[in-house]
């Protein structure tokens, strides 16, 4: 990591330039959204989406916040995504302990089953889930969405964690067994602490994935009091009309929490990925 190695190779500059360019391309949509969020509708209509706003027009954001009671939607999203992330990681750990370390019979087929469950489109699940939720009296409740996504995310987590734990160093486990540790103790005392970086990454992914879910929450969260942020954004898309500036304002409000969450946990995230690489 000496400075001449960093700057000496022209190849590195090319890679850097390519990355900067890629980052710029990725950021353009966000820039356009931000630009339009601060424009008045009249400015948007006369100047088009790419013109620069004349001043800071905050009415769109304020009006949207009040119109959909955004604070409540944020809380709902936070609650659902938070609980799902924790519960799904927990479920994945328990499943993967049995499948990856416990080596239960037919684990390969179980994993294939989980993988297939993962690839099912949500549209195919809607009607069965709808009838189940109605029977259980959970239709139009946040608990229904929490349960559904805990299972959906848990299926992916189980698949991923099982293959990670399948390569868990056997020596450590055997040593613990010799010391008389129970299976329960091995899980919580050894397996979980050692694979914590991976679990943290899963937790963050589950949170962000659940946060962004639109279709199932739209179907299951009927009352406005229960709705999540992405469903609330849908209010703005009319039958024939769209309000481009307010949509931008709402999109900005919708993105910010997820980005903030990512920034807070991004160190954990990168560490989780590199830990695997070093080993």
């Amino acid at each position, binding site marked *: 990591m000496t400075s001449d190695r960093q700057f000496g190779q022209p190849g590195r500059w090319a890679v850097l330039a390519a990355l900067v360019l890629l980052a710029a391309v990725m950021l353009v949509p966000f820039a356009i959204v931000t630009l339009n969020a601060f424009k008045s*509708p*009249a400015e*948007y*209509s*006369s*100047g*088009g989406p790419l013109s620069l706003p004349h001043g800071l027009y905050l009415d769109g954001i304020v009006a949207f916040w009040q*119109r*959909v009671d955004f604070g409540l939607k944020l809380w709902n999203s*936070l*609650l659902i995504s*938070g*609980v799902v*992330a*924790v*519960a799904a990681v927990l479920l994945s750990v328990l499943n993967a302990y049995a499948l990856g370390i416990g080596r239960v019979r037919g684990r390969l087929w179980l994993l294939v089953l989980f993988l297939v469950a993962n690839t099912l489109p949500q549209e195919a699940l809607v009607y069965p889930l*709808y009838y189940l939720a*109605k029977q259980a009296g959970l*239709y*139009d*409740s*946040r*608990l229904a969405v*929490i349960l559904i996504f805990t299972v959906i995310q848990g299926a992916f987590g189980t698949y991923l964690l099982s293959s990670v734990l399948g390569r868990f160093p056997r020596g450590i486990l055997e040593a613990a067994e010799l010391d008389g540790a129970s299976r329960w103790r091995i899980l919580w005392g050894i397996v979980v602490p050692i694979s*914590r*970086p991976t679990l*943290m990454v899963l*937790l963050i992914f589950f949170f962000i994935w659940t946060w962004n879910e639109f279709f199932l929450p*739209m*179907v299951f969260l*009927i*009352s*406005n*009091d229960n709705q999540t942020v992405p*469903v609330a954004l*849908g*209010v*703005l*898309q*009319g*039958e*024939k*009309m*769209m*309000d*481009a500036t307010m949509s931008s304002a709402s999109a900005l409000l919708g993105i910010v929490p997820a980005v903030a969450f990512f920034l807070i*946990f991004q*160190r*954990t995230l990168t*560490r989780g990925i590199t830990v695997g690489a070093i080993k």
Partner: protein
Amino acid sequence: MVRLGRSAAVAALAAAVLALGACGGNDGKSDAGGAAGGGSAEAKTLTLWHYETGNSAMGTAWAEAMKEFEASHPGVKVKFEEKGFEQIQKTAGMVLNSDEAPDIMEYNKGNATAGLLSKQGLLTDLTEEATKRGWDKLLSPSLQTTAKYDERGIMGSGKWFGVPNYGEYVMVYYNKDMFDKAGVKVPTTFDEFTAALDTFTKKGTTPIAMAGAEYPAQQLFYLLALNKANRAWIDSFELYKGKVDFHGPEFRYAAQTFSDWVKKGYIAKNSAGMKAEDMGVAFIGGKFPIMVSGSWWFGRMQEEIKDFKWGSFLWPGQFAPGSSGNIWVVPEKSKNKDLAYDFIDITMKKEVQNLLGNSGGIPVAADPAAITDAQNKELIENFNKLSTQDGLAFYPDWPAPGYYDVLVSGVQELINGDKKPEEVLDEIAQPYNDNLADIGN
């Protein structure tokens, strides 16, 4: 590094546990609240859903209607929830089949929406109320088309399942400044209209703002067909009351003329990929003198056009796409049907209807003298004129499920010049006839 990681993880875990705890507590509370609300809701709350923006004509008028309802029904509260169009579109069937159904809601008119739900028994038959409360007298026959559905769920006859509050129609918006500059007068006949298009083209301006990727192109295509059509043809096409020949004079003329207009430069070739929003923004930005589209743009034009004078006139011809707006429906599982009927009755009252008209909408039962704004007056008078000359011709995508996309791609090919008009007609005839076979006609 490691220590930091541990404390971060502990913090995250603590936060998660907190969230879990909060979830339990909150769920308990909201359940209790819901139960209590449900208990008293039987007598005291009217749950109402609609998906119009608060500051639109309908949003304004209906807010007033809710106020009047609460004033005339002491002790009853209106619980209004604004919904997204897509959510209602995709989930209405499921919601209305559950105990979470609202007492009254706005819903889309048409066979595939209100018709389908009525066939499934999810909507309340309103026939008796309509005659008792005189809604059938307030609404003209062509507006009633979208309120009634037969046992197959096809509109036009049968029982009342919905009540429309407002109308809509396709018209010609024009940029007065550009018309004056080019020395063009507002055309009253179709020949004058094409002459005006010609004048603009000769001066190097593309006259018609168009959007090939969405509804505007097929509505212009339909308008051209309507210029050769009569009511019997419209009833055949829209309500399956007879056979439609796609190679008959109506559609053949429409396809040929549309294709000619592209060749002559009345419609830009690059408009094939445009969306309705692009078209509207281009017109509002003063880039085109003419836009042929629906009254749903009206409020936005009033609000956003600042740099030039504009107006609207009826399409030169007897017919134009148009119908009632969306309808109020009462779910079969509504717990307060009588209150829902009362609410619909209030929305049909003169005061609410006049407010709708003064806010830029098209009321169906207003007092014309009470409309103060000149532009709104013109809009409503044109609608009434169209309605009286039996000119509301519905929309071209209504007859079959998924027909919207068929027409979009068909007309796009006319704009691109990919296919000959005759071939396009074959292409749009096939799904139409398949649907006829499906419903047993």
